[in-house]
């Protein structure tokens, strides 16, 4: 297996590297696996690595010890000090400018009416009334601070990470399903062998027929990747369009964007506590439906409204790993003889309960 950064020859090379800094600050298990392999491959660089870690820790210094809840409390306190209702107070000169503009406009209208015919004005308004060309693409920007489910017209779903953006066609008339991603998204694609589903990012293009996988490509980051949870996908680096790489279940392809180095490897099974959706299993055996809904709610960050009392006797058995979000809900509803609708970004379950 090939690992980049073999050219690191000074401590500064490490300190200037985004991946290294991310590793030392966040210490994610997947990064640990990566650096473990790196150290095994370049034992002669261990000394440099150790110095770099120590230097970084010293520069960083004592870390702030605040829980998420404490940070939220501080935020609320800040907001509480900010006046709620506000009036936009414009400096006087701005009013003056508006007044001047209004006066000029008035003069112009007077001139128009006086010198030419009303018809000209009519033509002018007619032009404005012409329909704006229908916008065929929809862009979803997620700035909520949490993941957001995007339901695509073909029934596929995307769990869009915060800070990410997705653009897709409102109607699926063409024989391709194409989406453009900036950032990170977990895709669960409805099976349709006739219409391939394609995800474009800055560096990688991913093509599938129906499966689930995660794509990450933030322009700011130096590595982009595709992780496959179920099924098969084909990934093509934008810079080498003739070299598609086929990935199957539990495989991952990453691309070092500066060097264009492509690495394909197996996904290391994450620890039990892992909460990322790629690692989560949706297999159930006589599981109470409210429990499943609770898991789906938290994984997809999508509220599900239902009568807990009514559904307390309902259970579900089966695996829902490779189906989109709304399909998961549909299959559960099917077995418990219920119906559902999605309104205002929440799921509402209509049920008579189980006996």
């Amino acid at each position, binding site marked *: 297996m090939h690992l980049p950064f073999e050219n690191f020859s000074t401590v500064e090379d490490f300190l200037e590297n985004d991946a290294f800094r991310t590793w030392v600050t966040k210490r994610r298990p997947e990064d640990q696996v990566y650096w473990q392999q790196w*150290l095994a491959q370049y034992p002669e660089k261990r000394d440099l690595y150790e110095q770099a870690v*120590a230097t970084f820790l010293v520069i960083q210094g*004592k870390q702030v010890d605040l829980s998420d809840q404490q*940070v939220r409390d501080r935020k609320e306190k800040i907001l509480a000090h*900010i*006046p709620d209702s506000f009036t936009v107070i414009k400096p006087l000169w701005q009013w003056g400018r508006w007044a001047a503009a209004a006066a000029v406009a008035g003069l112009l209208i007077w001139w128009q009416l006086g010198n030419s015919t009303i018809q000209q004005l009519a033509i002018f308004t007619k032009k404005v009334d012409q329909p704006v060309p229908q916008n065929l693409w929809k862009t979803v920007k997620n700035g909520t601070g949490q993941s957001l489910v995007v339901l695509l017209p073909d029934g596929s779903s995307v769990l869009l990470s915060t800070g990410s953006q997705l653009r897709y066609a409102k109607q699926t008339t063409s024989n391709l399903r194409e989406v453009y991603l900036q950032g990170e998204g977990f895709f669960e694609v409805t099976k349709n062998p006739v219409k391939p589903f394609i995800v474009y990012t800055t560096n990688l293009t991913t093509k599938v027929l129906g499966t689930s996988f995660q794509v990450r490509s933030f322009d700011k980051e130096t590595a982009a990747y595709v992780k496959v949870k179920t099924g098969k996908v084909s990934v093509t680096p934008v810079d080498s369009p003739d070299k598609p790489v086929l990935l199957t279940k539990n495989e991952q392809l990453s691309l070092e964007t500066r060097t264009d180095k492509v690495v394909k490897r197996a996904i290391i099974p994450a620890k039990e506590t892992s909460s990322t959706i790629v690692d989560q299993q949706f297999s159930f055996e006589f599981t109470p439906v409210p429990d499943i809904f609770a898991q789906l709610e938290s994984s997809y960050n999508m509220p599900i409204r239902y009568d807990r009392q009514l559904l307390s006797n309902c259970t579900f058995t089966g695996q829902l790993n490779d189906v989109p979000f709304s399909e998961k809900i549909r299959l559960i509803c099917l077995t418990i003889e219920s119906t559902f609708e999605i309104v205002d970004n929440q799921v509402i379950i209509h049920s008579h309960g189980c006996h």
Partner: protein
Amino acid sequence: MTSDDHVLWQLFRAGDKQALGVLAERYYRALKHYGLKFMVDGAVVEDCIQELFLQLWQNRLQINETESVRHYLLKGLRHHILQHLRSQKRVQYDELDWDTSVVADVDSETLLIRQETLVNLTKTIQDQLALLPAREREALYLRFYEDLSIPEIAEVMNVNRQSVSNFLQKALSKLRNQWLVHAFLTICIFFQKNLL
């Protein structure tokens, strides 16, 4: 910067209080971490952060687009802390202190280093860093921990870009000596062990 920050910044400037709240939550730890470096009390830092966001809100109509929200906020906080210190008559000539206390318990195992090695190394580098002027240490922090560019650091620290480059160059060259000494010692120990 993330496109997301950008969107939130725009919303905030358009009068969305919640958007400012999201940014406050996102950068709270980073701001407090930075603020504490100036050897002021935690409560004072929190007051300064509060003050910073209140002022951002009041001035939102005059505030421009920014390339990086992170650097804008750090710069703002530095200003508020400086104001506080001035009012306490603790600073003159804009010279600020810089804390050098180090992380108490580092999880060396996670970081793939032997505990002993890491403790020794951090100690050596720590001592070296403590000898540097506060400004050089601050520049190192902003460059490598906060990942700011040289022009951004210049704005935050309110000095020109050349000074920032100089701070970094000087600090790094002093550290480089330390790194080399350490590498040399390791080699010596290695040979010694082989000879014995």
